[in-house]
């Protein structure tokens, strides 16, 4: 079971979560505008499908919220 650090929290995900696309689907965030950063590297949307997530990865998931 890979352990990830997502937005500062330790999160354990199933073995079936191999890629960023898998991870977003697992978290139920696959229908939203979401930007992913792994270990300080920001991913383009087209990279989600192939980018693997590994044990210990530090992942930031951000989106747009109301602001001025």
């Amino acid at each position, binding site marked *: 079971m890979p352990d990830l650090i997502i937005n500062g929290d330790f999160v354990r995900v199933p073995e079936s979560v191999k890629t960023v696309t898998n991870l977003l689907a697992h978290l139920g*965030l696959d229908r939203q505008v979401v930007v992913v950063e792994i270990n300080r590297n*920001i*991913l383009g949307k087209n990279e989600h499908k192939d980018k693997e997530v590994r044990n210990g990865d530090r992942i*930031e*998931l*951000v989106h747009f*919220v*109301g*602001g*001025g």
Partner: protein
Amino acid sequence: MLTIGPHEFQSRLLLGTGKFLDFNVQREAVSVSGTQILTFAVRRMNIYEPSQPNFLEMIDVKRFTLLPNTAGARTAEEAVRIARLAKASGLCDMIKVEVIGDMKTLLPDPIETLRASEMLLEEGFIVLPYTSDDVLLAKRLQELGVHAVMPGASPIGSGQGIVNPLNLSLIIEQSTVPVIVDAGIGTPSDAAIAMELGADGVLLNSAVSGAKDPVKMALAMKLAIEAGRLGYEAGRIPKKRCGAASSPLEGISVT
């Protein structure tokens, strides 16, 4: 027509999306405001609540140009990171540089703002820095090549209106890029005055989102900005110390 980098806009109102209490009211306010540019902030998602409502998903994104801000950044480096995250969404190429230097007044840090603007220009962003109303800072930003300068009317969310119209006028007179008065607008008359001074646009948020009736205030702001712009283009009369009669002084019928 308001031109910012490669983008052209009919509306001169830029509307923030923060602090609205109700998404439906917000959507209606956005609609009646006629705005074509919406600002957003970039924040961590709540991964435990995937169905959390998000305003961006309630509007037709293609109808608007998104202007994410770098709010939350305290340094140029942090601002650049937030800008990169925003751009990676694939939804926008503009960035409002917002580097707050003091949490009490929320005034922008001029040095970090300048540094961040320079770094983001190098990366190809369309850069719109939120600045104080310092005339020389606006000039230095312009010389860097920013696509618009956005001096504050007064501190963010203060609703104090334009506290230094002289500085704003000087910024506008010297500017070769659009000047958008950003922050501190409280009333439609504040927005109209900014436009009468010759501003190219006004960016506001709290004045609408915090109004008793945000939809009505959004319309008031739209009309005020249009009125102010028309007044500026029409050219005001000079001020005189004494009266100048509007009616003819001859031919008065007296019995």
